[in-house]
């Protein structure tokens, strides 16, 4: 089937890609903000229905995250600046753990008004986040590296021609 001719020139095509790129990240961070707002702002009497209330946002957020993750891994892409190694993975996991700890301390303290409980919950949540993030990053970094090696292999016809 013949492809329909684009109405855009090269510059407009790049602008559109940039707009779509920004839109994707607005959707990503917006969904995360909405999920967190629902967790914080849902009144106590509706709290038992919270999983059902945020199902839609959670599904879209997970689909978006999984698509971004798998598409990058398939193409052997990790990050513009960071290398997929243990040091950066640990640093990223600690940052994620720190963010979760801050959120949990504030959330638990304003909900239960007990600092020790808030610190305890935050500590456990942060530890679990660090471990899970580090494991996920280690596995995905390994898969990405393997894919990079596979994509960088010289194709047979190119080697034979020499």
């Amino acid at each position, binding site marked *: 089937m013949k492809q329909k001719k684009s109405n855009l020139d090269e510059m407009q095509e790049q602008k559109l890609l940039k707009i779509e790129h920004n839109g994707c990240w607005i959707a990503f961070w917006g969904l995360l903000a909405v999920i967190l707002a629902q967790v914080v702002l849902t009144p106590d009497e509706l709290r038992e229905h919270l999983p059902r209330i945020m199902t839609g946002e959670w599904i879209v957020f997970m689909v978006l995250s999984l698509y971004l993750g798998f598409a990058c891994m398939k193409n*052997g892409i990790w990050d513009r600046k960071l290398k997929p190694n243990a040091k950066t993975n640990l640093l990223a996991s600690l940052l994620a753990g720190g963010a979760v700890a801050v959120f949990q301390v504030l959330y638990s303290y304003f909900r239960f008004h007990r600092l020790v409980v808030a610190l305890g919950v935050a500590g456990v949540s942060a530890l679990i986040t660090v471990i899970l993030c580090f494991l996920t990053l280690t596995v995905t970094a390994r898969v990405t590296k393997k894919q990079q090696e596979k*994509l*960088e*292999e*010289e*194709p047979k016809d*190119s*080697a034979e*021609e*020499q």
Partner: protein
Amino acid sequence: MRNLKMKFRRIELEMSQTELARRAGVTRQTIGMIEAGEFNPSIKLCVAICRALECTLNDIFWEEKDNEAEKE
């Protein structure tokens, strides 16, 4: 549109895609995709490739109008 001129020039210099990619500062995949006509490089990358292949932009990337129309 496949870039056979680039591929032939590379083979003429007995250079692998990996080696050309290293000299142009890109990945091997990018060189493979340019040769296969699946990726249009920027003028900056075209210049880097031409420098690595010791030739001019005309030698590798210029297409005569008739040729271009035929291939399309």
